[in-house]
């Protein structure tokens, strides 16, 4: 079974301070000095798919895992890492690097879905949103373009008794939904407690991965010209930072009891009576 897992590499936002959030005239924030990491939901998707592939090792149609990212080169190290931990193929789709794809999930979904069709994949797994644009749309758009069923907020997936089905666990309205679904399908990973982190390759796996080749494709290879990559449905007008509206007050009182009484009288009583 051909499984494609899509991921995005983003700056580690935990390492940006408030003062670093300054953007230029194109609304880009300079993050060149911050390390890049797997987008957290995509990392779950990558590890969950690896675990699924291990379950499918001895079936008639074993898993063939492909990792896909759309970027201009920064993802190569991460693709090598994925080959080291067990991905069979690593694909980078590169576009004109002057294009701003942060808020253009439609184009990203076109690139992904064209690759999926071209390669005859049966399952697409990807994170529910990426840190850069926080669009949360790519998975749904990919499913729509492929005409496949789509499950959102997936937290786990395992093989089913029937070879052309998977058991999928997802969150819905505060409950956990367990379904057995027929392939093909698109799975959009949410917060997975089972597989939050990608495994680490051994020294030997890393050495072997160095010899493996990455597949680099362009939008042209996938039948999309540069005109088709433009964001036609929306224009980024402005960005502005939110000022945190926090304030601080010290509770009066000599003892904890007096302070608790003060907290209740001044701040809680009114709210609790509502």
């Amino acid at each position, binding site marked *: 079974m051909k499984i494609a897992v899509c991921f995005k590499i983003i700056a580690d936002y935990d390492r940006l301070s408030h003062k670093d959030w300054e953007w230029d005239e194109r609304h880009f924030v300079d993050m060149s*000095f*911050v*390390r890049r990491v797997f987008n957290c939901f995509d990392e779950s998707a990558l590890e969950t798919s690896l675990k699924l592939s291990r379950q499918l090792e001895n079936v008639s149609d074993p898993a063939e895992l492909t990792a896909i990212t759309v970027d201009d080169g920064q993802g190569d*190290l991460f693709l090598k890492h994925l080959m080291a931990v067990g991905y069979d193929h690593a694909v980078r789709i590169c576009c004109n690097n002057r294009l701003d794809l942060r808020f253009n999930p439609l184009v990203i979904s076109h690139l992904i879905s064209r690759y999926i069709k071209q390669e005859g994949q049966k399952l697409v797994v990807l994170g529910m949103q990426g840190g850069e644009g926080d669009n949360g749309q790519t998975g749904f758009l990919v499913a729509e373009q492929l005409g496949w069923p789509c499950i959102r907020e997936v937290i786990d997936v395992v093989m089913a008794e029937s070879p052309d089905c998977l058991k999928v666990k997802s969150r819905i309205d505060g409950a956990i939904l367990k379904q057995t679904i027929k392939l093909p399908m698109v799975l959009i990973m949410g917060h997975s407690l089972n597989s939050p*982190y990608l495994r*680490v390759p*051994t*020294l*030997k796996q890393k050495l072997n991965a160095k010899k493996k080749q990455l597949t680099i494709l362009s939008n042209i290879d996938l039948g999309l010209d540069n005109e088709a990559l433009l964001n036609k449905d929306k224009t980024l007008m402005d960005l502005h930072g939110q000022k945190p509206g926090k304030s601080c007050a010290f509770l009066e009182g000599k003892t904890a009891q007096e302070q608790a009484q003060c907290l209740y009288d001044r701040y809680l009583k009114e709210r609790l009576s509502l």
Partner: protein
Amino acid sequence: MTLTREAIVEHLKNIVGKERVITDEQVLKENSHDRYKKFETIFGVYSTPIPAAVVKLADTNQVSDVLKFLNENKINSVAKTGGTATEGGLETIVENSVVLDGSQMNQIIKIDETNMLATAQCGVNLGELEDRLREQGFTTGHSPQSKPLAHMGGLVATRSIGQFSTLYGAIEDMVIGLEAVFPNGEITRIKNVPRRSCGPDIRHVIIGNEGALCYITEVTVKIYRYFPENNEFLAWALDDMSLGFEVLREVMVEGYRPSVARLYDAEDGVQHSFDQFAPDKCVLMFMAEGNEHMARATAQGIAEIVEKHEECRKIDSRLIENWFNHLNWGPEKIAEERELIRKNFHIGFTTEVSGNWDCINTIYENAIKRIREEYPHIEDLTMLGGHSSHSYQTGTNLYFVYDYDVKDCKPEEEINKYHIALNALIVEETLKAGGSMVHHHGIGKYRTSWTKQEHGSAYYILKGLKDQFDPNGIMNTGTIYPVE
């Protein structure tokens, strides 16, 4: 006659009050180990004997009274404050040990701006002391990764070192005076003077004793003016560690004292994401700090030295500054690490050693080679590398870093299969080349097999201290001194 566990607890309650004697089973379990056994304890296995009690000490007199009682009854004690030890020093290997927890002795006693001194009780968190000092424009200059968690007593007891040591020195260079209690209950104070010639420097009996000779209750350290606005970061990529050590040596011998001087090999660099800007390269980095003139001159001087070596390629200093500013380990990072270990059965440790300039590269190459060639579970290793992070006029340290997948063994077997075995190969190669087997974590309980070899004929002095100050052997048995 040996006291029963119940009798020990009862006596302790009489001495310090029942509210200060903790016997809750989970608390006792958590106090039976330190980070050396982090793997098994994450999986709920506690293979070390559980202590009889944890005593939350209130003041120096209580320390004295409790130690006197333990000494008279030959009950083993384990001194503890922040609990960030990494080498088994906090393990309660003797049945019915008592953990002496000084974390509630947490008063900053005095900040003396005239004499540039700060005095703190043993349970003061270094991060809190540092924050207080920085509010007033000062710093201790001590900044180990454990700063958010470690306490002053433990830092002094283990001869700890901080990330800015190349400028400020290690803890032994900072401590001016001390108060400590010996097992017979004797309270001793060493006064705060800038220097003296009055016999041997007795501070060094206490600094680094790891709770094996006495209990540190109060510490006075030097403080410095703090000028973070002048910090300058510098970094270069280079092909091999040998060249890196050579450049480090030139910088040190030339007399420059950057606060940070680090050299990472390519493998170790990967776990810090250095491969994103220096793939397959070693990374050499410095931070110059201090007053404006000193910081600028230090940065310029270092750059001149490094850039004479054409093989060194300059790296955007902002990358290093951003990385360095996120290096400390607080509670959230410990929790994240525990989760990673639990989910992926994957863990990492370090062994830190030191050597003079003429043998440091030999230690580095031989230890890595021996692990690659001789370690039977090399297939399970996910990382094997190292870095130097504390340099001196005469040599530098080496931090070997090794991560591995724990496979085909019970949680309690991990330590022998992986950690102890890897640690041993590094220590053996270091001693063989003439280096020191421990640079700054302390001997703890897992390098004691080599304590005699480390000290050679000078072990006579070390043993004499134990015989003199702890004749009943109640002070952290199995730490520093091998169990005979």
